[in-house]
């Protein structure tokens, strides 16, 4: 089960630039490592992160094996309207996680 920490300001003024941070727990197994017996450890990573603001996509990232465990993403956007910011991660072995945060824009 994935755990995630989201940081979105609860309130903002219209037109403000707001910082958004998202941290999620994930092993990010690269697929390049082997066990002590030489057996390859299969790749298990998050491959995609999408952030939407009231349904409209505002940020998307593709993840690759060089991304560290427990990936942290920080970016900014412009506060346009009150509503919900949702975060979706998906990856290998059917991995999927979602979080959301409410923002009130005055």
């Amino acid at each position: 089960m994935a755990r995630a920490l989201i940081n979105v300001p609860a309130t903002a003024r219209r037109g403000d630039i707001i910082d958004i941070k998202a941290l999620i727990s994930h092993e990010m197994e690269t697929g390049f490592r082997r066990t002590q017996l030489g057996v390859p450890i299969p790749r298990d990573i998050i491959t995609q992160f999408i952030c939407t603001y009231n349904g409209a996509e505002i940020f998307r990232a593709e993840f690759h094996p060089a991304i560290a465990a427990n990936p942290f993403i920080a970016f900014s956007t412009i506060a346009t309207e009150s509503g919900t910011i949702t975060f979706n991660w998906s990856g290998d072995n059917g991995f999927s996680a979602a979080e959301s945060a409410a923002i009130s824009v005055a």
Partner: protein
Amino acid sequence: MSALADNRAGGALRSLCIAMLLVVAARAGSAAEIPLPQRRSGYEFMGRETRAMQDDDSANPGMLWVLDGEKLWNTKAGAAALACADCHGDARASMRGVAARYPAFDAAAARPVNLQQRINRCRGEQQKAPPLAFESKDLLALAVYVGLQSRGLPIVPQTDERAKPFIEAGRELFQRRQGQLNLSCAQCHDDNWDRRLAGNAITQGHPGGYPLYRLEWQGLGSLQRRLRNCLVGTRAQAYDYGEAELVNLELFLMWRARGMNIETPAVRP
């Protein structure tokens, strides 16, 4: 220095050992404990970015384990079907300051126990549940959740007379040369903490941030894991998790860091 030049092919580890020996030779005979006002947390040796990670709870990956710990705290376990919260209530109140005074002397064990051992004893006696393995995700999660409740509080100086001989045993271990490199903890962490080893800061080795998220581990780890790393680095045989020697060393390190703040969950490079 010619030995160093001749053996360039011998690998980084070899030149590192030689560099360390030179450093030690340059300061032979100092071996004094760090005066209290000169003590510095590992935090102060870190770069700006790593500090920022520790300072922001939404960027500090250690907080992911805290979330787990909070859930475990409220989850019933064992044959007694008790959760930690059933006896201890809200950890934010009941566990405040607890991590700042562990390891603590335990009358039943007739020796000091660290926080993880104390959690496991509670599991066994109250919850009637099997102990959690050292370094397991659940034990680290509970320890870091309890540790967080002491964040910002000073480490309490040990006042229990019964613990004193164990502090001394820890100090003796800290100052004892061991391993194939014949190094003591003190030679790096008391005598050379203001220098660098292979580009990395040699810190003073204070325990207040544990369990902490180490970028090198890409995960959370206990103080004992870090101590075992250091022992392997001196090419000594590391003590097993929970062994008396490691707990004594933890106890001595907490005494050495008395008055410094708990930072759990810290972030280190």
